[in-house]
C-alpha cells in the first residue's frame, strides 16, 4: 500500500513561489513580445490620399508610419529626402536617439545602419550627397508628429538625419528645417525602443523599409 506523503508547509510555499515566478516570467516575456498589440499597422490598401506624390511610407516593426512631405515649405530638403528614400538609403536605419515621449531620430546613413552600427561615430555620418542649406520657416510649428531635418549646432549642416517629434516643441520653430508631418502611425513611433535615460539606444529599433507611396 502506497502511503500519501503530505507536503510540508515550506514545500507548499516553495511550490507557490515557483508558480508565481513562472507566471510572471511568462507574462513579462509575452508583454515584451507584444509591444505592437492593439496598434493599428495602417494598411495602405485602406487609406486614400489627396496628394500621393508627397506621401512617404516608413515601415517599422509595428506597422506603417505615413508621412506627408511639404515641398512648398522646404523644397530642397524634401527633394533630398525623396532621393534618399528612392535610393533605399534609409532602409535599416536605426532610431539611435530616442527621447521618450519627445522625439525619435534616425537617418545616419554612414554609421547608423543596423547592419553596421558604429556607436563611437553615430550622428556624424554622411550620405555622400553633400550638406544642405537650412530652410527655416517662422510659420511651421513643430507640433506632435512633425518631421524635421536634424543638423549639427551650426545651420546649413543638414544631410540625411531626420527627427520626428512626439509632442509639441515650440522652441524648434524657425530652428530646424521642416520636412513634413506624420498623417498616420504616431502610436507606432511611440513604441520605438528608448534609451531609457541614456543618449543613445543600445540594440535600437530600425526602419525596415522607407518608400514613396507611388513606388510602394
Amino acid at each position: 500500500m502506497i502511503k500519501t506523503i503530505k507536503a510540508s508547509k515550506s514545500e507548499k510555499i516553495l511550490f507557490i513561489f515557483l508558480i508565481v515566478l513562472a507566471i510572471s516570467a511568462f507574462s513579462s516575456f509575452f508583454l515584451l513580445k507584444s509591444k505592437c498589440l492593439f496598434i493599428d499597422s495602417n494598411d495602405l490598401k485602406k487609406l486614400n490620399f489627396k496628394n500621393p506624390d508627397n506621401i512617404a511610407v516608413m515601415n517599422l516593426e509595428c506597422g506603417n508610419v505615413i508621412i506627408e512631405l511639404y515641398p512648398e515649405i522646404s523644397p530642397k530638403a524634401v527633394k533630398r529626402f525623396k532621393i534618399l528614400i528612392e535610393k533605399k538609403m534609409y532602409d535599416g536605419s536605426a532610431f539611435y536617439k530616442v527621447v521618450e515621449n519627445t522625439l525619435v531620430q534616425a537617418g545616419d546613413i554612414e554609421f547608423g545602419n543596423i547592419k553596421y552600427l558604429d556607436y563611437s561615430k553615430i550622428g556624424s555620418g554622411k550620405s555622400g550627397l553633400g550638406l544642405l542649406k537650412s530652410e527655416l520657416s517662422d510659420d511651421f510649428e513643430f507640433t506632435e508628429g512633425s518631421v524635421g531635418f536634424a543638423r549639427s549646432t551650426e545651420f546649413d549642416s543638414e544631410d540625411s538625419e531626420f527627427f520626428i517629434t512626439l509632442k509639441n516643441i515650440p522652441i524648434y520653430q524657425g530652428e530646424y528645417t521642416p520636412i513634413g508631418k506624420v498623417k498616420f502611425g504616431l502610436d507606432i513611433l511611440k513604441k520605438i525602443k528608448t534609451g531609457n535615460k541614456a543618449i543613445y539606444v543600445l540594440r535600437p529599433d530600425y526602419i525596415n523599409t522607407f518608400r514613396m507611396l507611388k513606388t510602394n
Partner: protein
Amino acid sequence: MKIIILFILIFQFSHVNADEIYNLIKIPNLEIYKLKNENNIRYLNTKGNFKIGVDDNITCNKTNQENLNTKFPTIERNIKRYNSKFLKKINLKYVVFCEGLFISNINTGGIPNNKNRTLILDINFNEKYFERMIHHEIFHMIQNSYEDDFNDQKFSLFNNSDFEYAECSTCSDRLNLDLYENTNGFLTEYSKSIPSEDMAEIFSFLMVNKNLIEEKIKNDSILNNKVNFIKLNISKIDENIL
C-alpha cells in the same frame, strides 16, 4: 577603446525637460518665458541655477517669478527697438533671464554669446543702469558680428596720443558707470577701460538718452568723432536703429 567610448556615450544622462532648449543654446535649466514676439526674439527663464563656460566660470541663479514679471516690460520695451532683420544680422535670438550673474567671480549685468545667439541678462542688475546695460551688451553682439567696422585700433585713434586703455575691461579699476559732467572724450569711467567698452558705452547712451549725448558732443571734439563713428557704422547695418 571603442568599448570605453560606447560606455561613456550610453551613460551620459540627459535631462528631458530642458533638453530641447539645451540642445539649441547649451544652457541648462531653462524654460520658455515668452516665445512669440514681433521681432522674433525669444525670452527664456531660468528655472534652476546654472553653471556654464570654461571650468563653469559663468554662474547664475534661478529667477523669482514675481521679480521677473515686474522687470519684463522694461526689458521688452528696450529689446523691441531692434527689428528682426537687425537681430538676425547680429546673431541675437534668445534672451535668458537669471539673477546674480557672475563671470569668473565678477558680477556682471549681461553676457552676450553670438555663437549660440544668446544674451544672458541679470534682472537684478543695478536699476539705475539697467536699461542702458541691455543696449551696452547688445553692442558687444553688434561688434562681434561686425569686427571690421567696429575695429578697436581704428577707434582708439580718436583719443589723445597720451591716453592708454587698460589691458582688459576687468583688470582696471575704471568701473564707474555714471555719466561724466566734463566728458573729455569719454562718457563714463568705464569707457576708459578698453575700446570695445568705450564704444558700447557710447552706443548705450545713444539708445537711452540721445539728446543728452548730442549736447555733450557740441563741446567735445573727441567724443563727437567717436559718436559719429558709432552712428555711421550702425547705419551701415540698419539706418533706423540710431
